[in-house]
């Protein structure tokens, strides 16, 4: 074997050293990230559990010193998020089906795809301001319905994107088979493509629900928040994120504690939805692999 010169050996050593240092820095970055995020979650749960009690679920928001809970905010959030998903998800699915099955690479479909991607990351505060202008001001006041509408606009592009992505994974042979059996275009989509992609579409809907459940800014302009129990969609409606926002900035310790508890509840809900969505995605991926 040829003898390595000193210069070669030195260069080899230097290359190894650079690799080690950079690798070490990356490990440090990962460690730092995990520690920071772990600290946030730890603060959230230790403070959240401290203010946790049954009253959080059974009582509405009350004056400082009068106890109270978050029941009205929890129910308000469920109503607005549920309604928002019921409006936004079907439209999003149709957009996804359009992009994957009908529009494909046509000029218009490309525009829709691009615009959808922009909407996906548009600042949610502006969507709130937009809904305020079209649905709050003209209709005479803040309402739960306006809140649901704002959330629907946020949910729609998420569902559209995931639906398109998952429909593209459905094998072309499924569609060909259906056509060969005499199915019409709408039957191919409704009876073959959509059922095959059901789990994946469900993933998209769950992710959209998780996203809108934590949205605060758009609700400031639309459903405003309400300290009383109200399920009237035409009136201002409480929601967990708004309750957290108002309580966290208050000077009363018991309100601050409730804000932490509310933040913990939302975070747990969002994380559970995300984990569920993974299962539904894994189920569909498994089916297609097998």
């Amino acid at each position, binding site marked *: 074997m040829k003898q390595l010169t000193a210069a070669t050996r030195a260069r080899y050593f230097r290359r190894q050293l*650079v690799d080690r240092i950079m690798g070490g820095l990356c490990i440090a970055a990962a460690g730092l990230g995990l520690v920071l995020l772990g600290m946030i979650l730890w603060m959230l749960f230790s403070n959240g559990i401290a203010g946790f009690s049954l009253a959080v679920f059974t009582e509405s928001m009350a004056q400082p010193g009068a106890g109270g809970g978050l029941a009205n905010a929890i129910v308000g959030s469920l109503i607005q998020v549920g309604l928002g998903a019921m409006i936004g998800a079907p439209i999003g699915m149709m957009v996804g089906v359009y992009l994957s099955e009908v529009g494909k690479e046509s000029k218009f479909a490309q525009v829709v795809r691009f615009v959808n991607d922009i909407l996906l*990351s548009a600042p949610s505060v502006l969507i709130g301001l937009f809904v305020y202008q079209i649905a709050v001001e003209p209709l005479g006041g803040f309402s739960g319905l306006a809140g649901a509408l704002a959330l629907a606009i946020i949910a729609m592009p998420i569902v559209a994107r995931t639906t398109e992505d998952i429909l593209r994974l459905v094998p072309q042979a499924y569609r060909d088979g259906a056509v060969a059996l005499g199915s019409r275009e709408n039957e191919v989509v409704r009876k073959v493509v959509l059922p095959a992609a059901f789990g994946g579409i469900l993933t998209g809907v769950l992710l959209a629900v998780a996203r809108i459940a934590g949205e605060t800014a758009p609700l400031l302009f639309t459903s405003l928040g309400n300290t009383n129990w109200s399920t009237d969609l035409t009136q201002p409606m409480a929601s967990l994120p708004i309750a*957290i926002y108002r309580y966290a900035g208050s000077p009363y310790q018991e309100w601050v504690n409730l804000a932490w508890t509310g933040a913990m509840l939302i975070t747990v809900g969002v994380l559970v939805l995300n984990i569920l969505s993974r299962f539904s995605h894994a189920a569909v991926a498994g089916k297609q692999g097998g």
Partner: protein
Amino acid sequence: MNTPIAERPLLGSRKIHAADTTFRISLHVAGALVVVVLLSILAIMFIGGKLAFDTFGLGFIWGTEWNPVTQVYGALPAITGTLVTAVLALCIAWPIGFGIAFFLTEICPEKLRTPLGVAIELLAAVPSIVYGMWGFFVLAPFMSEYVQPWLTNVFIWIPPIGDSFFWFTAPPIGVGMLTAALILAIMILPFIAATTRDVLLSTPQLLKDGAYAMGATRWEALTGVVIPAVRGSLFGAVFLGLGRALGETMAVVFVIGNAIRMPDSVMAPSATIASVVANSFPEAEPGTLDLAVLLGLGFILFVVSFGVLAVARVLLRQERMS
């Protein structure tokens, strides 16, 4: 048989069924709705903000004074706050996020890759108000107690830096642009790490194998082969992160200090467009200049975000096509 259905000629006896026509029309309407929503947001913001643009002209964008009492509104302080916090956040979050992504794809033991990857994605889903609360109750006190006095003491010895903007000569009250940028950085960190990891994973294994076969180290394979191959997408991920930071409201509103004036230090209380809109909205009556100003600000933010996100998408798509 890979011709898509839509492009296949219909066989003689098969006519387009009425149900297919309705089906197609309704799908086209849904697609058009997406475009309509985006255009209406732009239009509504512009029409609503027109009064502000008419009153102040271009001075609305360049004006440095913000005074609700005299009804003089200039957006420059909010625009400055938005850009400084977002760019600073990106400068902090991107190197760390990239490190995490490289760690997850090349360094991390096989067994830990999936759980750590999932953990990062879950953290990206935590609502921004949680980050805002943490910043308000934990980070801001920590900044005022330790970090800001320390920074001031260090930089006071470097007069050109210590005295001028950027820099670290504000009373240590905890809230301000630096704290907001840190919170934004922590918030977008999992997002940047997750998108960058996906980009790195999209590099063809063959390219990497080639680099290793030539005797490259992991770092050389990354800088010499992987990064050149996916450069566009990497920038796309950065711009996506920037888009998030620009429009973020709840993580910022708790810790920015909400002072709408030209900042004289990176530690000084300031405001971003999103925080001004959220904070001033309760006092803005419909039909007044106050509300028009907020809508005008919204229009500016929307145009800026649109530009940033459009660049991100174009960069990310390029790679997807090739």
